[in-house]
Each structure stands twice: as structure tokens, then as C-alpha cells.
């Protein structure tokens, strides 16, 4: 091995000539053979990654065209699952609506919130900045701490909000926050936002710190008038990589918080008012064992998630131009 690298370095010009004599396939095979160590080092991680992250996507896709109950062999039924989802399943349509509302609110709001806060604390002294970072980030890592919202909004007079409203005589009877369809969605969105400042937020904080300070000074000399212009013309373009990363995490998060709804509003929530695609998936996949049908739901969810990511990616390329 040791001499191989040295040999390769010496043989480099020779190899470039050799490449023309080979077909692309031969060349690739030769390169693969030369770099066998890379594949060996990558293999353990990549095999696990493929098995539990990528293959499930394909399994879902193939099973979505079948009728399958986990016991008998799958039977191919073409597009029937999809037809049933969109034409016969009112609750799925409701779930789609709810999911899109959740995602359309929590994704952008949490993204903007992360960015704004990171921007605002950027010029504070380091110790203070670290403290504020902790305050905003802590809810994201505190596991089930959001259950406190159930105590605060509990439906008896001992809940914080009901207790105060009763005490101030603004209401006569406690409001059943998590049993009333018109409160459940907004409350779950607020709680989701509360927990949503995660890795993307940290990425923004770090990103702001890496923007070259002399660029601001140059900008000030060149006629940048206020901090908004500074943000748009200097900071945002410099931070585009972080903005991309943050967007991906925000979108993935926005589609994945069914767990909060279950914990706060119960499963199913009253009148399915906070029923998301994720719930529908678990219902058919986990409870009813209609695995083929559940796979169709999962496939649609994959398409929605990756689709929104691609769209946001395109939009972000226009930032600062």
C-alpha cells in the first residue's frame, strides 16, 4: 500500500495518456480497483444507511401498487391504492389539508424565527449570546418537555390559562382547549414552533459568525444605508449554504411532528381536526395492517417532502440577487 501512492503520483502523467486508450467502463473499473480501500472504509456505514434509509423508500414505492397485509404475499393491484386514496378516502384528503397547513405555517415561521433570532443575537457579547442560544434551543432537545402545554392549557380550572381567565372573570366555564376542534390546530402549531429551533438555528448562529466582518465595513463605505440593506446585499449571499441546510431541516421537521399532536390532543384528535398524513400512515400501517395502502400514503409523503425541498432550493438560489 505504502508504495502504491508514491507510484501513483509518479505514474500520473502516464495514466492520463492511458485513459484515452480505455473505454469509460474500463477506466472506472481500474479506478475502483485502485481505490478499493475507500470502498472498504465506506462500506459499513453505507450498507446500514442503504438498508434502513434508502431501501425503505423503494420498498414503500413497490408495495404501494399491491394489496399486502404482512401475512399473505403481496398481490399486484396497479394504481388502485392511489385511486382509493384520492377518490374514496375523505379522511386522507383532510389529513393532506392539515399536514399542508401545519407545514406551511410551522416550516416558514420556524425558519424565519431561527434566522431572525440568530441575526439579532449575532452582535451580542459571546457569553450573552451563548445564554440566549441556550434559552431558544433548549425546548428542541428537552424530549417531552412540551407536555407542560397540556398542564398549562388543561381543561379544568387548575390549568394555567383557564385558571387565569376564570379568575379575571373573562369566562364562566373552563375552555376545553384540546377537545375543541377550533383550538387544537393553532395550539399544536404553537407548541411545534416552540420546539422547532434546532440544528438549523445553530447553523445560522455559526453562519453569521463566519461572515467576514470587513465585508460589512466595506459595505458601509460603499453606501449600504441600514441593516436591512446590509442583510440583503452582504449577509444573505454569504450565508446561502447555511440557508440551504436550515431550509432542509425546517421542511423535514415541518412534516414530521405528528407525535406532538398525539401527546397533546390524543389519537385520534377530536373530529380528526389535527389528523396528519403521518397519522393516516400509522393508522393503516400499524393498526389495520393494510400495508400496501399505507405504502401508497408513505410514497405520497416522500414525494411531498422532497418536492417542497426542491422548490425551496430553487427559491433560495434567488436570494440576494
Amino acid at each position, binding site marked *: 500500500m505504502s*508504495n502504491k*501512492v508514491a507510484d501513483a*503520483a509518479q505514474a500520473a502523467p502516464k495514466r492520463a495518456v492511458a485513459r484515452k486508450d480505455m473505454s469509460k467502463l474500463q477506466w472506472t473499473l481500474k479506478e*475502483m480497483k485502485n*481505490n478499493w*480501500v*475507500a470502498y472498504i*472504509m*465506506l462500506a*459499513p*456505514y453505507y450498507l446500514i*444507511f442503504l*438498508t*434502513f434509509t*434508502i431501501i425503505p423508500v423503494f420498498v*414503500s414505492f413497490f408495495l404501494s401498487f399491491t394489496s399486502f397485509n404482512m401475512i399473505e404475499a403481496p398481490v399486484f393491484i396497479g394504481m388502485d391504492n392511489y385511486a382509493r386514496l384520492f377518490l374514496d378516502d375523505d379522511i386522507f384528503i383532510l389529513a393532506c389539508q392539515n399536514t399542508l397547513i401545519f407545514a406551511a405555517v410551522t416550516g416558514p415561521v420556524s425558519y424565519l*424565527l431561527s434566522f*431572525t*433570532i440568530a441575526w*439579532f*443575537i449575532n*452582535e451580542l*457579547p459571546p457569553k*450573552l449570546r451563548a445564554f440566549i*442560544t*441556550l*434559552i*431558544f434551543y*433548549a*425546548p428542541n*432537545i*428537552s*424530549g*417531552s*418537555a*412540551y*407536555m*407542560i402545554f397540556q*398542564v398549562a392549557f388543561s381543561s379544568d380550572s*387548575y390549568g*394555567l390559562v383557564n*385558571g387565569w381567565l376564570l*379568575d379575571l372573570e373573562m369566562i364562566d366555564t373552563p375552555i376545553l382547549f384540546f377537545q375543541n376542534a377550533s383550538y387544537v390546530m393553532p395550539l399544536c402549531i404553537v407548541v411545534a414552533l*416552540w420546539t422547532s429551533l434546532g*440544528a438549523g438555528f*445553530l447553523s445560522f448562529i*455559526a*453562519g453569521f459568525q463566519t461572515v467576514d466582518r470587513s465585508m460589512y465595513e466595506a459595505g*458601509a463605505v460603499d453606501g449600504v444605508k*441600514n*441593516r436591512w440593506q446590509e442583510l440583503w446585499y452582504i449577509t444573505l449571499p454569504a450565508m446561502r449554504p*447555511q440557508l440551504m441546510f436550515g431550509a*432542509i*431541516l425546517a421542511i*423535514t421537521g415541518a412534516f*414530521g411532528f*405528528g407525535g406532538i399532536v398525539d401527546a397533546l390532543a390524543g389519537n385520534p384528535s377530536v373530529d380528526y381536526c389535527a389528523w396528519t398524513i403521518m397519522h393516516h400512515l400509522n393508522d393503516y400501517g*400499524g393498526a389495520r395492517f393494510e400495508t400496501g395502502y399505507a405504502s401508497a400514503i408513505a410514497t405520497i*409523503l416522500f414525494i411531498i417532502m*422532497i418536492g417542497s425541498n426542491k422548490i425551496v432550493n430553487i427559491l433560495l438560489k434567488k436570494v440576494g440577487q
Partner: protein
Amino acid sequence: MAQKYKKLRVRKHTVVLNRSAGGDAGIFFFLTIMGIFMFIPMYYTVIQSLKPLDELWAFPPRLYVVNPTLKNFKDLFRLMNSSSWGVPFSRYIFNTVVISVSGTFGNLVLSSLAAYVLSKMKFPGKGWMFQLIVLSLMFNAVAASIANFIIMSFLGWVDTLWAIIIPAWGSTLGLYLMKQFMDSSVSDAVLESARLDGASELRTFWSIAMPMVKPAWLTLIVYSFQGLWNTGSTIYIYSEELKTFSYAIGQILSGGIVRAGAGAASTVVMMLVPIIVFVVSQSNILETMASSGMKD
């Protein structure tokens, strides 16, 4: 605070940046309001855990505690030691520790190797292999849970801890962050000279690249550990003796009125660990995050 902030700004810059007092005040106001919104629920959780029974059920409810007590924590430990669980409570803690430690360790080893290869070696297929990892950040793993269940049953891992540990070894966020960090902070020239000196790739990886990416290790450890520490009930595990600490805490929380105090205490215990870990490692995590950006 506002004054300190002003002074610092004047001191640090030779060119005076365009900052209006109104803007500063607005920012201060916004940060305060948002900070209170973020902080109150955490604060209230801690306060609830310190309230004696009569204060937990006082009307109107209070955001402060008059006679703080640790009784709720004692109740929690008494509950943990009670025989109503079917298995000893320490079993749940043991499971969570096993999952967190082995999951994190495996993830660290495999991800570091993979990150090194993807960042510093050239070979056919490298481009799309990394693109596939980036793509996987774009969808939520929950959507794959049904198909994963089929794979788990095919492997015979349903109702074993492997179903949680092994997938954690292949999780993507830690690998992504480490690879990006290596791209920006390990110079190719240093690695090249080590290779020319005859060091094997494995040796270059271990004694040159690894020591240079310590912040990224720590970040990966923190992320992996936090995720695994909070593992609750999953569809892969149904035996009581394989369930986790987080699941057992959930059982206490759902115990209703009698356990309101112990429930709050359990949430505090559960959230303290990740928060302390973050406080200790914050500067390293932010250092890693500085290179987290996605180049197109």
C-alpha cells in the same frame, strides 16, 4: 444589557456601521418577547416539579412556588421502585443507556470512516453517494417506518434492541456535519504528505484527520446521544423488558392527577441530561455548525 451592547459595538469597530437606536430598541423588544415565550414553559415545568400538592392544585394557578419541596422527586423514585411495572424500573434505564451508548459509539466510528472517505478520497461513485445522503436529509424517517418494519422482520430484529441500535449507526445528520467539517478544516496537503510518507489510508485517517475534527466528533456524539436518549415507544419493540426510560416516563406522565407532581419531576430529570450536555459542548457544536452549509 442594552448599554453593554452599545459600548461593545463602539469599541469593536473602526468604521461606524449603520445602526439606528430605533432598530436596536426594536430588536431588544422582539428578543425579550420571544425569549419569554421560549423560557416560560421550561421555567413552569421546573416550578411544577417543586410544588407541594396543595400548590399544584391551588386556584388560581401560580407561576411561582411558595414552599418549594423535593417531595415530587422522592415520589418519582418511589414510583420507580414500586412493583407495579412488571419489570424492575432500572431495566428501562439500562435499556436507554445501552441504546444510547452503543448507538452513539457505532455511529461515531462508522460515520467518521465514511466522512473521511467522502471528504478526502477520490473514487468512482463518490458524488452520487454523498448526494444520496443529502437527499435523505430531505425526508422524515417516520415515513419509512412501515417499510422498515418489514425489513426488520426480514432480518429477525423485531422486538430486539438491534432494531434501534443498528439504524442509528447509519444516521445521516452526524455524518453530514462531520464530512462538511472535514472539507473545511482538514487540509489535503497534510494528508497528501502523510500518504507520501507511506502512511496507509486508515492510519492517515486515524492519526492525522481524526485529531483535527474533534469538535465534529463531539457534535456527532451530542446529536446521536440526544436522539437515542429520547427514544420512546416504537413499533419495533413490544416486550416490556426492552422498553425505554422515555417510555416509562410517559407512563408516569399519563398517570393523571395523583402523579402530576411526579410527572413534572420526571420531565425535569429527562430534560436535564440533554441540556447539560449541550451547555458543556456548545462552543464545539457551533464550531462544527460553521461549516454545515450546503454548497450547490
